[in-house]
């Protein structure tokens, strides 16, 4: 859809690209969310994260989220970009950008999109520590 930009990529995500995609003369506000890799989780120091996805399905699920956001909220455009591969501290696994005439809808849609992405999109991260590694959320 021309009002949505969905990407899964091994390249570095670009904030300005997401902004440029959603920006429009009809819009008064753009809300963005940038996920970044933290240096700790549960008080253990993270060295790097490895993201992998079931990519064709992940793209479909991200597209569904974008379509739902366009239906549920009065927004104009939405971009959802996710990185896969090895990321270091401070790197960006995900960017969401939403434009709308009025800011409340942009905030709501942006938060809806990241919350839903974390529940439904088949992407997994493995946290690497000095002394081992763990698949996040898996609780094996």
């Amino acid at each position: 859809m021309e009002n949505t930009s969905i990407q899964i990529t091994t390249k570095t995500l670009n904030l300005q690209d997401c902004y440029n995609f959603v920006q429009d003369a009809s819009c008064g506000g753009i809300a963005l969310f940038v996920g970044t890799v933290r240096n700790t989780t549960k008080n253990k120091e993270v060295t790097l994260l490895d993201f992998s996805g079931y990519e064709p399905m992940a793209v479909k699920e991200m597209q569904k989220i974008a379509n739902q956001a366009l239906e549920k909220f009065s927004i104009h455009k939405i971009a959802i970009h996710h990185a896969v591969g090895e990321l270091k501290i401070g790197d960006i696994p995900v960017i969401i950008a939403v434009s709308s005439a009025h800011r409340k809808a942009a905030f709501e849609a942006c938060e809806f999109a990241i919350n839903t992405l974390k529940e439904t999109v088949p992407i997994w991260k493995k946290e690497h520590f000095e002394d081992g590694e763990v698949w996040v959320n898996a609780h094996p």
Partner: protein
Amino acid sequence: MKIQVLFFGITTDLTGKNSTFFELDSNTTVWDLKQQLIAKFSKLQHLHEFAIAVNEEYATDDLNLIDSDVVAIIPPVSGG
């Protein structure tokens, strides 16, 4: 009938595989397949839950599988 099963995330470690093929009786449901997977890959029991996608869409336990389906084992996701 024959289906393909794809493993992701922790399930690749638990099964030692990225994918495998299964011969199934007709009228096998998603729920039936889950039991067969756990029987064949006993370490999957350690995972307290996993979802199933059939042909890239989340599937419920009562869905009947058909020949050539591509079934993915989806452990709890952690993107974002």
